[in-house]
């Protein structure tokens, strides 16, 4: 399986730990269509690293200040980032933190006992969906969405049962490797 684009391949070459003849040869053999670019990039990466130690100019200082202003203006939104994930993004999130889809779905439905979720997992999930662990915890602590949906229907609402994170992982047929990744509180 190799669906990496030309840019991905050149980026990968650039970030190799070293760019010795063996590394260059490996990439040239694997990607003959990128021979020209790989040779040019190899030369670029061999350049002497120049780092200025002289003071930066006032113009550069102003640039830095302006960049900071723009950076703080790019305020992360405050919407519920777990609830608003698109289907495609949900797949990416599951892939990124290596959990079955059902686990994410149950988390989105607030059907998991928050106290049972390993902190490390919350931090990883928050990082992937670009949220803070505290905001994520707060969101997960809200009432079950499945219960809320039932309440809107004609039928008598049935409170959804919340399960522990470990139980959910096991119910979702998580592999032993996936289970071992998170330390459960026995």
């Amino acid at each position, binding site marked *: 399986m190799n669906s990496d684009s030309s840019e991905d391949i050149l980026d990968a070459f650039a970030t190799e730990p070293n760019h010795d003849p063996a590394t260059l*040869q490996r990439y040239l053999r694997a990607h003959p269509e990128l021979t020209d670019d790989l040779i040019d990039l190899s030369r*670029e990466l061999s350049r002497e690293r120049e780092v200025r130690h002289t003071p930066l100019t006032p113009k550069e200082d102003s640039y830095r200040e302006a960049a900071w202003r723009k950076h703080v203006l790019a305020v*992360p939104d405050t919407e519920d980032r777990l609830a608003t994930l698109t289907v495609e993004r949900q797949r990416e999130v599951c892939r990124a933190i290596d959990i079955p889809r059902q686990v994410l779905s149950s988390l989105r439905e607030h059907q998991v006992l928050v106290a049972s979720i390993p*902190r490390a997992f919350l931090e990883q999930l928050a990082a992937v969906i670009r949220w803070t662990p505290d905001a994520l915890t707060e969101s997960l602590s809200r009432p079950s969405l499945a219960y809320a949906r039932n309440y809107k229907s004609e039928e008598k609402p049935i409170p959804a049962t919340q399960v522990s994170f470990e139980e959910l992982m096991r119910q979702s047929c998580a592999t032993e490797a996936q289970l071992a990744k998170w330390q459960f509180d026995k």
Partner: protein
Amino acid sequence: MVPSVPSIRQLQKRKDGVPYTRRSEIEHLLRELVYLPANRLIERCQIESRDAPDYVPDECLLYFVRERRAETENADFAQLYKLLIQRLQRALGEPDETENGKIAQDVLDKVTMALAQDRQTYLEKLDYFEVNFADYLLKRKFDAKKALRRKTFRTVELNEDPKDDDTPSFAERVAGLFEPFDPKKMELRDYRSNLDAAIDQLPPLQQKILELKRQGFQFDSKDPQVDTIAKLTNKADKTVRNQYAAGLVALRVILEAGDPQ
């Protein structure tokens, strides 16, 4: 809630389906730095000398800027961000109207924009900087240079590959004349910088041949399994040797003339 030590964010960018990882020394240092109070972390990030024991590598500084992505304006966040941009400015050189100056500005603009976008949606491209900051910055410069040259057609106008000097003994005559990658000379920082700038002035084919020679490739081989310079540049052995010789002559002239700029 299960208590745990602060975890270090995993990278999301993947290669052949496998997530990239930071260098082990960066991971170890992050596990140490993550416990520092903000003022101490900032103090350490202010250290410029890479040889200082408390120096914080660029990969770690970027990690902490990205980790504060959800924060609003505050003094610690501002300091860390500005220290990161300052390091980029020092590494890229001063933006001006020269080709290098334009490249510096372009890369700086794109990286600051990427950092801002990363606050909204995780930008996997930034993971490359956490894997190998200095080399990925060179890759971004490489991309910017290619784009700039495409725009100005400079490669075609100024660096057109010259015709071969078909004098049969041309390559032989200049062989041994000059060894640009002599290990002794390459120990000298000034020589390396001057050589880089001198090679920049050569036509693209000569630059490629010199790079392959530097990497230890042979001009030609009877063994079809061997990757040779002739094969990789798709040129005849004689052409490769002649272009290499022509490149050596030009390099020697440029270097002897003093400042190649």
